[in-house]
């Protein structure tokens, strides 16, 4: 239970932490803004979790997927708008949607097993360890991205943000094929023997840039198209603005 809690907390908290760090490096937000976005996100996750059992029965047991696809697309658009315009509203939407999408799963896990007296301590320690690892990783990533920003400018950051956001569209695509909204195409490559998504590095890369060991053709096309689109729009920003930010 301890290991499961640790892995669960890492899986669900790491994508939130990574996105928050990347957005912070693009434009630093105040502690109040970050705190309020996380708090609203946590409340939204709780409400989403409360209604999830009911929502899951909509559209022939597919309601949850539709809502999650909506959240993934919202995150992509909000991150793009924030990168281009630095509007606080876009920051709030991106963070709240990401927290709602990922934290709701963890809340379901916590609330389900919390009542079990044997599991309480393991859940607590696992969550604490997971949060600590996420925090350490976030701090390192923050300083690394800031150093890269000062050394090479905004474009490496935009590239990572583009991959990270495109990964959300991959999640949406997987959800769409899961409910038969689109048909899966043939697998382009199989890297399971080389780097499994289940491994430590695989999980980090999955959270960072949406690594998939067995992507299908549609996933590769959507990922590359959306990343290129994101970058083209970012490159369209006048150089004076990007210099100001550095």
């Amino acid at each position, binding site marked *: 239970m301890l290991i499961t809690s640790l892995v669960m907390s890492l899986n669900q908290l790491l994508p939130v932490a990574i996105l928050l760090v990347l957005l912070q490096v693009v434009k630093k937000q105040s502690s109040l803004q970050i705190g309020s976005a996380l708090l609203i996100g946590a409340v939204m996750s709780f409400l989403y979790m409360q209604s999830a059992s009911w929502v899951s029965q909509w559209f022939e047991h597919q309601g949850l997927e539709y809502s999650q696809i909506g959240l993934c697309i919202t995150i992509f658009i909000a991150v793009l708008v924030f990168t281009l315009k630095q509007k606080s509203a876009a920051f709030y939407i991106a963070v709240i949607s990401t927290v709602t999408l990922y934290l709701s799963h963890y809340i379901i*896990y916590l609330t389900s097993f919390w009542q079990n007296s044997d599991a309480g301590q393991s859940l607590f320690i696992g969550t604490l360890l997971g949060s600590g690892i996420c925090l350490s990783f976030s701090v390192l990533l923050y300083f690394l991205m800031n150093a890269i920003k000062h050394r090479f400018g905004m474009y490496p950051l935009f590239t990572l943000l583009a991959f990270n956001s495109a990964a959300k569209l991959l999640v949406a695509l997987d959800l769409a094929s899961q*409910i038969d909204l689109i048909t899966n195409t*043939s697998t382009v490559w199989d890297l399971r023997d080389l780097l499994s998504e289940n491994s430590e590095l695989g999980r980090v890369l999955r959270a960072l840039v949406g690594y998939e060991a*067995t992507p299908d053709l549609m996933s590769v096309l959507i990922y590359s198209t959306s990343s290129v689109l994101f970058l083209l729009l970012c490159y369209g920003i006048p150089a004076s603005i990007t210099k100001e930010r550095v």
Partner: protein
Amino acid sequence: MTKRLFNQCLCCLLFLSFNAASKEYLIILKDHLFYPSQIIIPANKKVKLLIENQDSTPEEFDSFDLNREKVLYPNRKSIIYIGPLSKGYYEFFGEFSPNTARGVVIVSDEGAQHANN
């Protein structure tokens, strides 16, 4: 002319995709175990997994190999479509009970025979 041909092809594709009946496989989750834990399905065919969680706690169906993730609420049924897949082994597990709730989808010609029967 080309546009009309394109539209007709698109209509055919949509028609085929909506009419391709997917074979259904029932999986039951009970006492944090999947029954059956091994499913044999045909290669290059889309199939429908109907998963019934008979436990009193939720579970999350997860598979890195299949790129699938879905919360299974207690005493509720959930549907997941998988495939078309090439021959091989595709593992799945319950993320909340990864030590017990484990299974594998085997894609083979044998699955095709099962499907034809």
